[in-house]
């Protein structure tokens, strides 16, 4: 059965621990209802920036795992971030790329080369410490604990279907500035 971004969010939330999650685009509505109190900050208003926002957190908080919940269309907007992440080489960085081949939020238009692009291969070529692809929820559940703990940067490309909700069909949530302020307080007040 095809995985959805909501399935992925539930697994990530169950095993978050002391980690920090950076969701973006279609994972944002699911994340805020599944894990409303969790340490997280959503990349909203600057599509493509999740991988970089997560990298900054990973460098600032080397003792915590940073999980970036990215999309294929989002990552394409800042594909060079794969090289920047690989160059910085954060050991505590897990990059989840949900590949459904479309820009779901804007109406499911196809992404460039959506039928052949391979984000696992791109991450590997850029220099990530590990990259793999998973196409079903059961395998993802089994593999996730290791992907959360092995030395990064780690990329997992998940072949998914479309989400049930998008930021357009389920708007709301805290403004980005409030999320930033709350996470800053959580980390620096800790």
């Amino acid at each position: 059965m095809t995985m959805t971004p909501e399935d992925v969010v539930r697994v990530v939330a169950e095993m978050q621990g002391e980690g920090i999650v950076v969701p973006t685009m279609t994972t944002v509505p699911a994340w805020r209802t599944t894990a409303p109190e969790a340490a997280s900050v959503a990349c909203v208003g600057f599509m493509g920036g999740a991988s970089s926002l997560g990298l900054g957190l990973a460098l600032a908080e080397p003792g915590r795992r940073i999980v970036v919940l990215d999309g294929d269309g989002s990552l394409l907007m800042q594909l060079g971030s794969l090289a920047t992440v690989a160059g910085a080489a954060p050991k505590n960085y897990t990059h989840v790329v949900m590949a459904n081949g479309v820009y779901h939020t804007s109406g499911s238009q196809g992404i460039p080369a959506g039928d052949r692009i391979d984000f696992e291969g791109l991450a590997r070529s850029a220099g990530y410490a590990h990259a793999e692809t998973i196409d079903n929820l059961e395998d993802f559940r089994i593999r996730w604990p290791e992907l959360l703990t092995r030395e990064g940067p780690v990329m997992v490309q998940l072949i998914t279907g479309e989400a049930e909700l998008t930021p357009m069909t389920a708007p709301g949530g805290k403004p980005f500035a409030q999320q930033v302020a709350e996470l800053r307080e959580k980390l620096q007040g800790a």
Partner: protein
Amino acid sequence: MTTELRTESIPAPLIVEALKDAFRWERPEGRPATSPLGWVLTVPDTHQRSVLRLLTDDPDIRLLTCSTEDEANAIAAGLSIGGEPVLMLIQHAGLYASVNTLRGVAMDGRVPSFYLIGLLGRQPGQELSDSRSSMVRYAEPLLETFGVPYARLENADDLPRIAEYYRLSREQMGPTAVLVGLETGE
């Protein structure tokens, strides 16, 4: 009456010291004296290459080269949220390239973001508005349009502007910039 601009190429070591002064002000409590003072995120700038050369081997600074200025903005936000002193060293073209991220991260996100921006192509003694280079000419109008406080680094007397505007970005929780007028010296 017009006053002639006193522009000069500022030696890189003076600029590096000014960056360190800015970082020292923000140094987190309890940080070991031996640890680096802060992060400089860059997409290399021809104009400030002598500064970058010094920073590359400076144990007080963590220099991270990014693929784009968009990334630098978001990485800086992550570092800032985690309490790390950080600034961005970029070129005017990079400012133009990353305007949406500046807006979305630094402004809407109220993230302290300080930019040291090189004005490649700027002529000595010339007002920016008179430059034949559109990249030089539009830098200040763009910052003004977005309400980003900025200062110019025209000569060594302006060096305190670096710490001043770095601090202002922290106090105002948003973007500020210093424009580097002439190519930095050795």
